[in-house]
């Protein structure tokens, strides 16, 4: 019946949503929530994308964003001891804070300095996973619920993606957003959530799953044998489709086969769309992180061909667990990140879509302010970056804590208790993305503990309204 479609190599853009395998592709439409939610983005220019960068391992972000004025720098230097960055190396950020404090940036991040000073990037300080608002005293007296597996990589990275720190869950808030609004994309085949780094929790919802592409292979990949005219390949094509089309009763087998069929089908459509966009003038550095951003920019450029109004992208940038040699290793990694952010912003400006793409960082946790000799250990609150023309740039949101030991944010061991919750951060991003107030609790089950979705005020205020 539909074998020919599966093997078909051309005219991908014309494949309709009723082709083979479409039954497994209609993600999101069975969600009961969808029925009550009118996708609100009908305007032809209404496109929005989120780019989530997981700095996996726990970025030592109190060395990324550093107190600059003398009084606070001296406290920083004393606490961080041999991990402190010399004052004369810091890149000074513009805009003094109202309270007179000044901040500097890690010396390896000149692009981020420029983005900040040009009003295209902001920080949120001392943010972290919280089940409910909690002070140091409440923490020490065990009066409030604490995130499970606090300070552990697997749990904390997971909770930044699930937004449900009281349990171990495998569904992410990016996935739940897709459950709700994916139906607004005219493309019913390719997931709204595109991952540059394979399987991840952020993009998996009750129905939604990620579509994985790779910079190393230039985007999506397809089954070579199906595109070939070699005699043996011509023969095996029939076998491939019958083995993968078969309805396996065993769910381990059906899951295996459907993933392949789904991927092949999406590849035909995706690769055709990307081949139809002209290359960007903006250049990207020759490393995997920049290559990921370049592929995202290209995918965004193909948004209309692909029929996408809402998209999320996910990059897992690994290797931030700097128990050792934090100064040397973090320097090169922050440099890579900074450069890639600058390049991506340039590309988005070239595409004239920088106001519709918001890029944000997440990371397992901040790290201990004190040193373990030549590195730092797992902690809790940290600092994140958010970038785009939709961002109120050049600001530091949240409360940058005192870095003095035993302060009212140091719960012991130079671990900062977060003063802003990830829920507030995510809620503001979700609202900008188009999640309605009534759906916010589905996306962020704990949100009512931190923010009233019906409120006229933004949760934090870092997005332009």
């Amino acid at each position: 019946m539909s074998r020919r479609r599966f093997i078909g190599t051309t005219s991908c853009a014309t494949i309709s949503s009723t082709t083979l395998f479409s039954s497994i592709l209609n993600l999101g439409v069975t969600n009961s929530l969808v029925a009550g939610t009118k996708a609100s983005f009908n305007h032809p220019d209404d496109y929005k994308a989120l780019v989530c960068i997981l700095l996996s391992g726990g970025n030592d972000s109190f060395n990324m964003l550093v107190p600059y004025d003398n009084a606070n720098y001296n406290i920083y230097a004393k606490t961080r001891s041999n991990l402190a960055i010399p004052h004369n190396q810091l890149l000074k950020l513009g805009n003094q804070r109202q309270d007179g404090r000044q901040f500097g940036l890690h010396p390896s991040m000149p692009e981020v300095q420029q983005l900040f000073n040009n009003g295209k990037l902001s920080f949120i300080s001392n943010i972290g996973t919280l089940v409910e608002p909690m002070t140091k005293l409440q923490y020490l007296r065990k009066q409030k619920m604490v995130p499970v597996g606090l300070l552990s990589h697997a749990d904390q990275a997971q909770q930044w993606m699930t937004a449900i720190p009281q349990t171990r869950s495998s569904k992410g808030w990016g996935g739940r957003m897709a459950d709700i609004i994916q139906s607004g994309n005219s493309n019913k085949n390719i997931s709204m959530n595109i991952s540059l780094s394979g399987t991840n929790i952020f993009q998996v919802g009750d129905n939604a799953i990620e579509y994985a592409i790779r910079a190393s292979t230039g985007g999506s990949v397809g089954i070579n044998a199906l595109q070939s005219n070699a005699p043996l390949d011509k023969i095996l094509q029939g076998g491939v489709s019958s083995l993968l089309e078969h309805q396996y009763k065993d769910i381990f087998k059906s899951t295996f086969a459907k993933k392949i069929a789904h991927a092949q089908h999406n590849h035909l459509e995706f690769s055709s769309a990307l081949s139809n966009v002209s290359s960007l003038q903006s250049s990207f550095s020759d490393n995997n992180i920049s290559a990921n951003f370049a592929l995202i920019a290209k995918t965004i450029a193909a948004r209309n061909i692909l029929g996408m109004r809402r998209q999320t992208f996910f990059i897992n940038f690994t290797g931030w667990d700097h128990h050792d040699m934090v100064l040397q290793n973090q320097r090169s990694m922050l440099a890579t990140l900074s450069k890639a952010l600058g390049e991506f912003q340039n590309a988005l400006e070239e595409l004239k879509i920088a106001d519709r793409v918001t890029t944000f960082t997440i990371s397992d946790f901040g790290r201990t302010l004190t040193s373990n000799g030549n590195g730092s250990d797992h902690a809790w609150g940290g600092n994140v970056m958010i970038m785009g023309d939709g961002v109120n740039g050049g600001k530091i949101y949240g409360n940058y804590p005192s870095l003095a030991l035993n302060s009212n944010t140091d719960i012991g061991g130079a671990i900062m208790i977060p003063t802003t919750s990830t829920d507030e951060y995510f809620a503001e991003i979700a609202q900008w993305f188009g999640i309605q107030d009534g759906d916010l609790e589905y996306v962020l089950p704990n949100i009512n503990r931190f923010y009233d979705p019906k409120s006229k005020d933004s949760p934090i205020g870092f997005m332009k309204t």
Partner: protein
Amino acid sequence: MVKQKEDIKYQAARLLNMASMGANYQTISEVAQTGIHQWIDNQFELPARENFTKKTWQIWEHFSPQYIQLFGRDYIVNHGDAVIPYWYYWKMAWWDTILKSEEHLRQRITYALSQILVISEHSNLQLSGPGMANFYDVLYRNAFGNFREILYEVALHPMMGFYLSHINNPKSNHAKNIHPDENFAREIMQLFSIGLIELNTDGSPKCDSQGKPIPTYDNNDIKEFAKIFTGLGPAGYYWPWEDYSHYPSEWANEYNTSPATVITWKPMIPFEQWHEPGSKKLLRDKVVPAGQSTLKDINDAIDNLFHHPNVGPFIGRLLIQRLTTSNPSGDYIKRVALKFNDNGQGVRGDMKAVIKAILTDEEILNANTNSKESTRKLKEPLLRYTQALRAFNARNMSGKLWNWGYQFDEAVSQGVLASPSVFNFYLPDYQPNGPIAAADLYAPEYQIHTSATAINYINLVHEWFINDNYGEVATKVGKSSHNAPSYEDDDLDPNDYIYLDFQEEIVIAHDASRLIERLNLILTGGEFSMQTKASIIKTIEKERDPEKRVKLALFLSFICPDYCVT
């Protein structure tokens, strides 16, 4: 009678799927003849003949003179881009060994352990191939030994020291706000021994009066264990182009900071003056007194963890998932955990008893095509690759089966000692969205079965069987690189090309059903359904040339769900 004999062969093949890196027809027949229990016992008796460290050095010594010859000693010794025994020499040693070794069970268990006690080349560990090989040797030598010894040797291994940063971990310095590094202390508990939650013997969580799972430790416990793992430094120094063997190891020496410059093939040694003094609290109300030596402290801490009741069910379940099924029942875990707790002769942690319990459990031995989904697992991509090569006796003229495996690793996100982090390639509790999650089943391997890797795998299988390209073996150095073997076409030696032996299959290829039945036996132990066989037969009958027909059959067999899910 004949029927019965054949059934035994299928059962033997199923066992070998769980207990080897891939078996050929001959091995399957031998196991069928010997009987499963006896075969496992025989495997236990085989001495550990391999030495991954030694082989890695030999391969490095094959290449290092070539670098000098081609680029000149001065260039090699003084070039900023160092010429050192990188990780790829170890990968070559691993493949060479895996493709030749007849220590089926030991190799499979070693590989399983390498996914539980994890180090990875995706770190600065790639600077020392011999170090990676030596870590693997620890798992290999102890695969049939005792789990306590594994835990102890892993804790003292310098590659683990670099990976989880407890090498050169100093005692506290309160004046400078320096505290002991907590990295290894956390992961040895969370991942290598007891896990996060108190467990019953059947692996279910123990709960408090409010029904909440009880954590096994808290951050204060981690801080105490961090103190235990202070004061370890390298056994000495190494640089390929200068003799450092008489240079004594020193604390805080600048060479200590890289796997490239220290001896990574001997255990770390204690520096008592850098070990945290004072007593330390262990788990379950044990305390180590002040004033003990570094190694005594570590031994006490390892004992403390090893005797925790969680180890049996926690490590037992992880091993079961690597060997037999993603979803062992509580009863299965319990039977394995009880063997861990006591092998029948009062010994705790006896790997042989644990392995035999896992492989011969009734839940597994009675499983077959019609079994319920809870006995299933997705076959790891790397095990599909090793099986493809081993089942058909991969060989080359030079005898150097020094596959690098880089393309494969890149394409499917799996290679030996190459996971993205200490959390391995996948988590034990991973549930892919869809019917598996809906059934509340686990399927770790699906975490690396993505729209990219799933397709890449099929393209690799095509490379193998249709294009006769079974791997990447280079034995020469070329002008293109002064510190790596050359994979440029001009530098490849035809004697190194890997080929497979399909003689037996070609002989019967005219009879398509007979051919498929043979592959069904060798590759899956009889998992192919009627439907799958019919699909493959229908396709391959379009090709009359016997060799090409075999290739088509192999390609289709290796990509079909009946093969990839076991």
